[in-house]
């Protein structure tokens, strides 16, 4: 099954924007209803009226921006673009298109000085040495963006909305305490294919729907080239394995390469730690997170 984006005849002429596996198709009206209520509820319980998020120019953060604007009004949303000097210019222009469409507040914070100040640049050797691997650099960038967002959350007086999707969360294609950090996340239970379906339905610009997903940590990086999979295939494997609890061989019997299913399984298992709060050594009679258990927000905990 394929979805044709709603944004104009020119887009339709170029063919479907993406492949949507039938088993992953969702009711976008209900999903939108649930997520906008969720965003309002989270802010209300915490005593906040405003929200902010890192707007990369990619589909995940674009969708969250649309959902948040729909939930609380664009005037209460701040989108922050945080490019590094090698970030693609398309990222910035796509982010600008989202901001223009929504009419929300927008800031650009260049994280190059932070990252280069640490790793060094132009021959200068920083604290981490100039030979830092792309992985180290990418993780550091994600954490620099997290630091910016949580700092701006104070001045904007809003909560940081998470933009990670279920696919990347499950396979661990996230930076711990980086892009995975947020006050709450409305789209963390949507596979990438479902993010695309919803983004198309809610009116995210066609250019964003069509471009290859990328962490944009170095030029021409794409998720699918780096991971060696396509999102529709990966999403389907995860769906049958995780949501439907099929064993590996039964998933393979649906027509997937057994080695790929096993590899995905390994990625999911290896990333369990990224999805959980670090364990605290149990010593006393009541330990936070273990047997001191309260809702995150309860009477008395709202900011005002």
């Amino acid at each position: 099954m394929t979805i044709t984006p709603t944004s104009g005849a020119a887009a339709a002429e170029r063919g479907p924007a993406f492949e949507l596996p039938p088993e992953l198709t969702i009711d976008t009206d209900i999903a939108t209803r649930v997520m906008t209520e969720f965003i309002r509820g989270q802010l209300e319980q915490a005593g906040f009226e405003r929200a902010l998020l890192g707007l990369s120019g990619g589909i995940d953060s674009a969708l969250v921006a649309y959902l948040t604007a729909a939930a609380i009004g664009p005037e209460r949303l701040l989108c922050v673009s945080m490019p590094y000097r090698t970030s693609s210019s398309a990222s910035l222009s796509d982010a600008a298109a989202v901001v223009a469409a929504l009419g929300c507040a927008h800031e650009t914070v260049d994280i190059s000085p932070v990252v280069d100040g640490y790793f060094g640049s132009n021959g200068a050797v920083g604290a981490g040495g100039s030979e830092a691997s792309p992985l180290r650099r990418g993780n550091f960038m994600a954490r620099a963006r997290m630091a910016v967002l949580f700092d701006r959350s104070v001045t904007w007086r809003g909560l940081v909305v998470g933009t990670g999707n279920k696919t990347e969360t499950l396979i661990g294609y996230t930076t711990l305490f980086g892009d995975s950090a947020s006050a709450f996340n409305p789209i963390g239970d949507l596979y990438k294919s479902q993010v695309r379906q919803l983004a198309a339905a809610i009116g995210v610009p066609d250019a964003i729907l069509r471009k290859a997903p990328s962490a944009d940590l170095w030029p021409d990086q794409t998720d699918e080239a780096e991971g060696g999979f396509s999102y529709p295939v990966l999403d389907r494997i995860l769906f049958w394995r995780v949501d439907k609890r099929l064993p590996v061989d039964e998933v393979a019997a649906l027509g997937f390469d057994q080695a790929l299913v096993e590899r995905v399984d390994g990625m999911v298992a290896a990333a369990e730690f990224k999805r959980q709060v670090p364990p605290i050594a149990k010593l006393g009679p009541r330990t936070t997170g273990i047997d001191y258990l309260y809702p995150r927000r309860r009477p008395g905990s709202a900011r005002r």
Partner: protein
Amino acid sequence: MRFGSRVGCYARLVQSIRIALGQIAPRLGALGANLERHRELIAEARAKGADLVVFPELGLTGYQLQDLAAEVAMRLDDPRLSALAAATADLSVVVSFVEESADHRLFIAAALIEDREIRHVHRKLFLPTYGLFDERRFFAAGDVLRATPSRLGPGVGLAVCEDFWHLGVPQLLALDGAQILINVSSSPGRDLAATNEVGLGTAASWRTLIRTYAQLTTSFVVFCNRVGVDESISFWGGSEVIAPSGAAVFSAPLYDEGLFVTEINAGDVRRERVALPVLRDERPELQLRELNRIVAERAGLEADSTAEPGALPGGDVAADDGKGDPIGFRSVAR
């Protein structure tokens, strides 16, 4: 003399029982590795002359399984269990694992395996789901409590951890013929304290419980608790064997992994029960009568003798008699 030597052989078996406590640190979810560890320690116990080898609760799987429970579950006809049983010739071994029933319920089970056969399976009766525990979310509770005869001579009663936080369990096992009560545990250590004998509230509680049960049932209590760490929780070991007098025969160290071998004289049960015949004097028919009454009262089938006047059937507090009369069903109750 042939007759005499047979008696002697029988007497040796009955009177002296060497017990090996496998105070191990199972690897969470690693069934194969834990099976291998069990086989190693069974062989070591055999070499040390053990008659009975006891492993802790979920020793074959680890404790904090959560969604792994279904992945490590075994039916009683699982070939991996049969292979383990094959190592129990002339031995009694207690192992614990996730048992899957034919209707796909998952139980925390302890099995007495003797001479290559599963002699008895006890499914954990009480699943703690409070404090740091969440067992009822992942497991079904057992419905059967039975003592079992054993090649060791005296009858054996199996229980798993929380089962021993319920008074009726050791008592029923003793009334049913058990003289050796075996509790296998994965007890998470907590309540760190300098104010009790062993510096750990959990250990102090357990030490009190098993001494009390041994004395009140005039039975041996064998307590085997694991060590190691699952996620946030550390298991404190401290396995013990308590005599029918309530005195400790053996106490393993806290937190140290090891196979600890000790010996009991099964004749102690007879001596204690003759000298202190409290088990003889138990009144199961009295308990049964009163329990039937209490159950009927709780179910609202009989008037509750201790409830407030005007309480609904099965309840014990009468709704407020004030002016507002906010509770709509009161008039129905009357």
